[in-house]
């Protein structure tokens, strides 16, 4: 079953899936090093659902979004292979003009720091509709109207007054709303949100998550939410993919991940997070450090930190395998994890 896409839920590559990844691998090449930031990622995302991609810094989650949207810096020696099938077309085979057009309309991305995705010397309204003016042939007057409407839709108070303001005049939460408005301008079918709330306070994070879900409900778009915070995805996502060392190590419906994790890294994460609802008990940290991607062995990247590893974990290449119809794990001993979690 080489390169068979792991589907969430199980049907591999049906018309229900808006995006199917098959063996997507992204390699950064240096003079002496080769870093596989994404290693053989296979995944399918069902139309209209929310997928949460969870992992720590360096796990490859942001690179995955950028590989799909082909947003990795062109000057770097980056190589993405595999198949990224969006609505029946392989995005990796499109020419740059077609790709730009898709990124301006159906496929959008919201980044972590809104300050870096906005030009500080341009009015916010102009930036929101830039895509529409370039791709949708909108006039300047029409664009201003549209910007006001979009800002209203993302919950900016008195948008007709604020449309001409500059980024420095807005708070972080408002700027994140502006960036979401910018993404919504293209009426996206698939929206990638890369840590959209990480730089924000918890009350503002709460507002932005509510906004994203409300927009999704209204437009039926598919949402990919990248986050380091398991609690954020627990509340917002239908499916979860956990990334570690450039790979997807576990993917399943959200409830299945929380009720019965089948990968030791997922289990470790769940145990190491302090919770507001639980008083001061000792945490169970994951020992050691995340791996250096330039020095990965042939086996499981988590094996050196894993309490359940056997000697063959470090030597056997491990692929994502199905545990149940919609639960997949890249672990040689999922039964040990199930037992430990119980």
């Amino acid at each position, binding site marked *: 079953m080489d390169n068979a896409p792991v589907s969430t839920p199980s049907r591999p590559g049906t018309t229900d899936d808006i995006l199917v990844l098959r063996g997507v691998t992204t390699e950064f090449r240096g003079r002496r090093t080769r870093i596989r930031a994404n290693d053989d990622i296979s995944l399918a995302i069902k139309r209209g659902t929310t997928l949460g991609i969870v992992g*720590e*810094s360096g796990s490859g989650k942001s690179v995955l979004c950028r590989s799909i949207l082909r947003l990795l810096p062109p000057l770097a020696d980056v190589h993405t292979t595999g198949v990224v099938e969006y609505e029946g077309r392989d995005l990796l085979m499109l020419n740059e003009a077609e790709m730009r057009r898709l990124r301006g309309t159906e496929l959008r991305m919201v980044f972590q720091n809104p300050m870096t995705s906005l030009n500080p010397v341009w009015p916010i309204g102009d930036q929101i509709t830039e895509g529409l003016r370039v791709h949708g042939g909108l006039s300047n007057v029409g664009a201003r109207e549209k910007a006001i409407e979009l800002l209203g839709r993302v919950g900016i*108070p008195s948008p007709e007054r604020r449309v001409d303001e500059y980024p420095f005049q807005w*708070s972080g*939460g*408002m700027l994140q709303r502006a960036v979401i408005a910018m993404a919504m301008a293209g009426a996206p079918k698939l929206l990638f949100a890369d840590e959209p709330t990480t730089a924000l*306070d*918890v*009350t*503002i*994070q*709460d*507002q932005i*998550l*509510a*906004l994203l*879900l409300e927009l999704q409900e209204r437009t039926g778009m598919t949402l990919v939410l990248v986050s*380091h*915070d*398991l*609690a*954020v995805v*627990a*509340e*917002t996502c*239908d499916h979860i993919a956990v990334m570690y060392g450039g790979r997807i190590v576990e993917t399943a419906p*959200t*409830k299945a*991940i*929380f*009720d019965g994790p089948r990968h030791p890294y997922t289990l*470790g*994460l*769940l145990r*190491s*997070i*302090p*919770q*507001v*609802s*639980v*008083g*001061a008990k*000792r*945490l*169970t*940290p*994951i*020992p050691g*450090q*995340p791996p250096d991607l330039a020095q990965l062995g042939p086996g499981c990247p988590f094996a050196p930190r894993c309490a359940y590893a056997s000697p063959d974990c470090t030597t056997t290449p491990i692929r994502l395998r199905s545990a149940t119809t919609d639960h997949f794990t890249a672990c040689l001993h999922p039964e040990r994890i199930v037992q430990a979690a119980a």
Partner: protein
Amino acid sequence: MSLGSELGAPLIEIAGVAVHFPVQRTWIDMVGGAPRRQLRAVDVVDLTIGERETLGLVGESGSGKTTLARTLVRIYEPTAGKIRLRGRALASYPRLGEDGLCRQIQMVFQDPYSSLNPRKTVAAALTEVLLFHRICATAAAPAEVARLLREVGLPESVAGRLPRSLSGGQRQRVGLARALAVRPAFIVLDEPVAALDVSIQAQILNLLKDLKDQAGLGMLLVAHELSVVRHMSDRVAVMYLGRIVELGAAEAIFERPQHPYTQSLLRAVPQLIPRRRHRAAVLTGDIPSPLDIPSGCRFHPRCPKVQEVCRRIDPPVVSSASGHLAACHFPG
């Protein structure tokens, strides 16, 4: 009025402290006759921290929590009010020497990448502190460095390494070791785990907890992450726009919050429970600017329970029987 703690004599006493910053006027402001403005970052805070007590300080960015923390190590001077350490005014302590302030109070910063000198090895950074403050003789320094590294759970082999070859978690441990080197009575921790990955956060939180139990330190833990504060603190203070709006035992704050701001803050935290949320956001809008503090209760523009009186009158601090304080006209 000072807010007592049951955990012994106060180590730190903050009485009526305000920290205001003058806002620079442009010449256009001056010609136009615009008034001189003050940014009221900390706007009258009373608080005590007991010996061996950990006080958690939470609030959104802009609430003044970092300013208050920095005032405790005299990075800022209070505009009004007094801070006492074991009954003696902070300002009357010498900076250095056996009973100097630097030997009593230390601070650990948020970003372990920018708070260590990139060209000093771990051993050199720690030795400098030990010798400068005359904690030990030159000959005894290596042994003391080794002891400090053990205390923060680092292998002795990191002594010769530079910060760039350490991970974020390891650097934060070095930052802690440096603060502990002078054997202070009190440590200010400003967002000590905010810059770390989740799997590393737990390691540092456990270490802090051990230090708290073993070293007998008083701590002020500033964090925006409520779960971190709950995990570590004996008591918790909730700050909003320069004021403490609620103060109580950690358990009480998290289980029976009295102030509507605390209640909203707690409800806004995502839970590790898989359920699709179908609710609106708990609070609308942003925290107002400390340049332009609302009248009456400063939380009233965002408060779900707001009444007429809240717009006019600053609420008094009400204390419940258990010593739980809330500054609200309609607590509970």
